[in-house]
């Protein structure tokens, strides 16, 4: 084949161009800096779990800080690493400078601005309350503009203007990431901004927290489904496909070996892109999600194992014949361990998606260990390998400051990862087994939840040590890279390259002949298909390639999304489930803002050990007014789905929020004194109710007098507390405190199915009449 041009004239017309490495250097430093920030916040969180006094300020309490850690690790550290890889490799693989330097810069600064705004808003409790999608609506809009408008346009236009005829596999993975992340981000972030509703209805914008607040268009089960469709595929298309692209460029470069198998690249790329999208519901096994969705999530996760391993095989086997280099080249060491961790976590993923395994692992630290073997092992090590390979080239020093320090980084980092994941695997499995253990009499062996928490403390300390080692190793890396940078020349050379522009017409060569001898039409067609000539053609057609990726990702999504929204029987209505009262909405918003879902689930699964501990399992119809859903993913503390049934005592919650250790020795929950002391802004409640009414919550009277209704309910709760705590000095204006709204919400949790249908009295608590299916015993 080769590059034969039909018009010989254009072939000789060489164009000169240079690569924009200045933008790569910017992303390079952003990766390093945000990486260290993300690791540091991670270490703080690890310490907070082992030592709750470390939750010293409400702004940095675990519930608010954990989203900052995940967002920093994913979008700031991994995000900038992706952009470093994309901007460096795309230009070279396309023999073209990025299409627009202005867009490159807008992309860089826009992205950093988004990260800074995340770091400012999350500690203030400005959050959408959905994992890895916490950033509020104005930031969501900015992400869409920067990701698709700046980055996407720039990247795709570079592909179109390229001078290399065919696109290399790394570029396919970048395309998939670009397309899928756009779709995921947009459809998981459809919301109604409270402040805008207020402006439309009253002409006033309201306070900043009203302005920044939004409610998702989806509620309950559907919100949960969309969130984990997003959450799982954020792992797929933000932490996997771009890093596979990174691997496909930098690993063969560093090893100086051809890629193991082009055929494998094709098969594993398309199967990965198509299958990944379906797997999201495995995050919701045994929940109120319809079971068919959960089943699809499981089987597609199993089918995903080999497509994932295709990437690992292509990575590791590329090193065949170069293993002696791995021993001496620290960059390759990072890549080998990175790819190995990729293989381990993509085996573990399907394993965890098996329903019976998930029944044990879900809500425990097992998930946390799984995620960290992926992010620390795969994402971080691939990133550091890339940074070390790039540094001498980007800074034109010819060599790294110290090879020895890279080795130290590698070994300390590896030990850190191992300490982290092994201790946390142990913690997860220990706690999972304790939750489901029964004694001989048929009772829970560990009836008090706290017993299963205090048991984990040694593991939490080991994890904190492991995390600290990893942070230290990254700092060593930072030092080494800065020292390399200091040795740079006064002025960077900008080499000029030459290549002909691509001619409009291209001959793909003769189509392949069937290699079969039998006389069967379809067999011949199949064999021609298997020879992949058609794919080679796609590789030179970036627009068509992108369209096929959109179709692959989109179709797979719609197969699950459409039935989730259209089949009514998925979510049987429960007549006694009513909208939250205005005060409860205010309380729920506090629950979301404090990030309670980071430690407490609200989902009792239909598992005997679980209903023994928490009460009747959760029904889909109970969540129809939950915006956002708050099912959670980890039980650092107990499940709260039935808290209103199990513990409706207002004075207990009042004292517990102030100081959890009063009732539970060894509790690692931080004090929420600031809610006990802080005043609730009653003026904000009305606009929130209006926004919720606008997207279909049947509010009736509350649309007009939400504030007075809230004050009325607060008075009742405050009076209850006063009556129950006679000897205590309570604030005069107890009813005005934030904690009262939160208690109102907690008292409501899980009670609706026990409400008597007849007298529609919102205050009627836990009336002894069961709705829908009744008690299970």
């Amino acid at each position, binding site marked *: 084949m080769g590059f034969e041009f039909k018009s010989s004239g254009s072939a000789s017309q060489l164009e000169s161009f240079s690569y924009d490495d200045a933008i790569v250097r910017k992303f390079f430093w952003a990766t390093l800096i945000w990486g260290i920030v993300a690791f540091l916040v991670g270490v703080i969180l690890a310490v907070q779990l082992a030592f709750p006094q470390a939750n010293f300020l409400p702004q940095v309490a675990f519930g608010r800080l954990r989203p900052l850690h995940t967002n920093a690790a994913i979008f700031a550290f991994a995000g900038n690493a992706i952009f470093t890889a994309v901007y460096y490799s795309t230009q070279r693989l396309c023999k073209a400078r990025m299409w627009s330097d202005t867009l490159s810069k807008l992309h860089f600064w826009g992205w950093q601005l988004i990260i800074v705004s995340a770091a400012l808003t999350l500690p203030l409790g400005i959050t959408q309350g959905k994992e890895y999608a916490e950033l509020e609506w104005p930031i969501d809009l900015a992400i869409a503009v920067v990701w698709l408008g700046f980055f996407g346009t720039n990247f795709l236009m570079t592909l179109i203007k390229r001078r290399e005829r065919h696109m290399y596999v790394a570029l396919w993975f970048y395309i998939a990431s670009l397309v899928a992340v756009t779709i995921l981000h947009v459809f998981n972030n459809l919301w109604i901004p409270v402040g805008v509703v207020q402006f439309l209805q009253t002409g006033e914008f309201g306070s900043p927290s009203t302005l920044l607040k939004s409610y998702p268009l989806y509620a309950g089960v559907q919100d949960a489904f969309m969130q984990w469709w997003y959450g799982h595929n954020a792992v797929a298309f933000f932490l996997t496909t771009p890093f596979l692209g990174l691997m496909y460029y930098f690993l063969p470069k560093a090893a100086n070996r*051809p890629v193991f198998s082009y055929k494998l690249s094709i098969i594993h790329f398309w199967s990965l892109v198509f299958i990944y999208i379906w797997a999201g519901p495995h995050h919701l096994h045994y929940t109120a999600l319809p079971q068919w969705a959960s089943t699809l999530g499981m089987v*597609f996760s199993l089918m995903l194992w080999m497509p994932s391993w295709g990437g690992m095989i292509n990575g590791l086997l590329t090193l065949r014949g170069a293993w002696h280099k791995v021993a001496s080249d620290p960059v390759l060491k990072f890549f080998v361990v990175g790819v190995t961790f990729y293989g381990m976590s993509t085996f573990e993923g399907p394993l965890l998606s098996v329903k019976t395994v998930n029944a044990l692992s879900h809500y425990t630290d097992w998930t946390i260990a799984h995620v960290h073997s992926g992010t620390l092992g795969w994402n971080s090590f691939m990133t550091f390998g890339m940074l070390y390979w790039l540094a001498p080239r980007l800074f034109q020093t010819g060599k790294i400051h110290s090879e020895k320090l890279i080795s130290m980084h590698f070994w300390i980092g590896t030990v850190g990862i191992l300490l982290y994941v092994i201790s946390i695997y142990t913690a997860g499995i220990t706690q999972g087994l304790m939750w489901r253990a029964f004694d001989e009499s048929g009772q829970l062996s560990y*009836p008090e939840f706290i017993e299963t928490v205090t048991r984990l403390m040694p593991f939490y300390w080991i994890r904190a040590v492991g995390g600290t080692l990893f942070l230290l190793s990254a700092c060593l890396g930072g030092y080494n890279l800065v020292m390399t940078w200091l040795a740079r020349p006064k002025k960077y050379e900008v080499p000029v390259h030459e290549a002909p522009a691509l001619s409009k017409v291209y001959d793909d060569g003769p189509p392949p002949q069937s290699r079969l001898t039998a006389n069967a039409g379809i067999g011949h067609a199949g064999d021609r298909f298997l020879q992949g000539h058609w794919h080679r053609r796609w590789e030179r057609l970036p627009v068509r390639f992108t369209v096929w990726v959109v179709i692959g990702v989109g179709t797979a999504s719609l197969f699950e999304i459409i039935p989730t929204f259209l089949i009514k029987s998925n979510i049987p209505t429960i007549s006694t489930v009513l909208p939250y009262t205005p005060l409860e909405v205010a309380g729920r918003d506090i629950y979301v803002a404090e990030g309670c879902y980071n430690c407490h689930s609200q989902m009792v699964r239909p598992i005997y050990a679980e*209903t023994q501990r928490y009460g*009747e399992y959760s029904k889909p119809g109970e969540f129809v007014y939950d915006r956002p859903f708050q099912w959670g993913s980890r039980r650092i503390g107990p499940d709260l789905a039935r808290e209103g049934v199990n513990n409706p*005592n207002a004075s207990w919650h009042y004292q517990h929020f102030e100081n959890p250790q009063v009732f539970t020795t060894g509790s690692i929950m931080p004090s929420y004194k600031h809610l006990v002391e802080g005043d609730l802004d009653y003026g904000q409640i009305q606009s929130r109710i209006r926004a919720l009414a606008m997207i279909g919550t049947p509010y009736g009277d509350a649309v007009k007098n939400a504030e007075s209704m809230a004050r009325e309910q607060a008075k009742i709760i405050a009076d*209850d507390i006063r009556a129950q705590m006679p000897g205590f000095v309570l604030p005069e204006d107890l009813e005005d405190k934030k904690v009262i709204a939160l208690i109102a919400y907690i008292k409501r949790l899980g009670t609706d199915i*026990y409400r008597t249908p007849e007298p529609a009295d919102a205050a009627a608590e836990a009336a*002894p009449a069961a709705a829908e299916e009744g008690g299970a*015993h």
Partner: protein
Amino acid sequence: MPHDPQVLDHEYDGIQEFDNPTPGWWHFLFWLFIVFSFFYVMMDFSASPFLPGYKKKYDNAVLAATMKKFETLGDLEPNATTFASFTKSEEWMNYAASTFSSNCASCHGPDGGGVVGPNLTDDYGKNLKKIDDIYTVITKGAAGGAMPAWGQRFHPNDLVLLTSYVASLRGTKPQIAKAPEGEIMEPWPDAPAPVFDEGE
């Protein structure tokens, strides 16, 4: 593979690709899971007896566990004699202690000394006069919902045993005792320890 495979004529910024076939075991496992998934989905969607679904599995588990727990007890009558009688069964009081510690201890203290909820060890009762009242309060709740209603939450036998356990706390010495609340209660009736025919 004994020989070096063919290198394709692809070249991107110096990166080349081999024309290696995809490994056989890779194909095998990929297809294995596709076939498995097909059958699994068919069985799951058709509610096959091999995959009974969450609800059915759960109901069976509840049934089995309840049978196992209460095999010897049968259905307990919630009356004063039963309550009083079970306070003397060490085995069943150990059993009910677990229910107490997971559901009641946070308000009444691990040993019933009282925290937010009243002290259960003294001779005074807030809503209690007779032993039967314990059962009523546990089942229906009290104090305007501050004491939740547990009637829906537990098996009827569990409610009876919990009543006995709470009754048995009277007269014990808690580590921290809350001051008495309410009025003085009648003494509990006396009844012989329950007899089970398990010894035969």
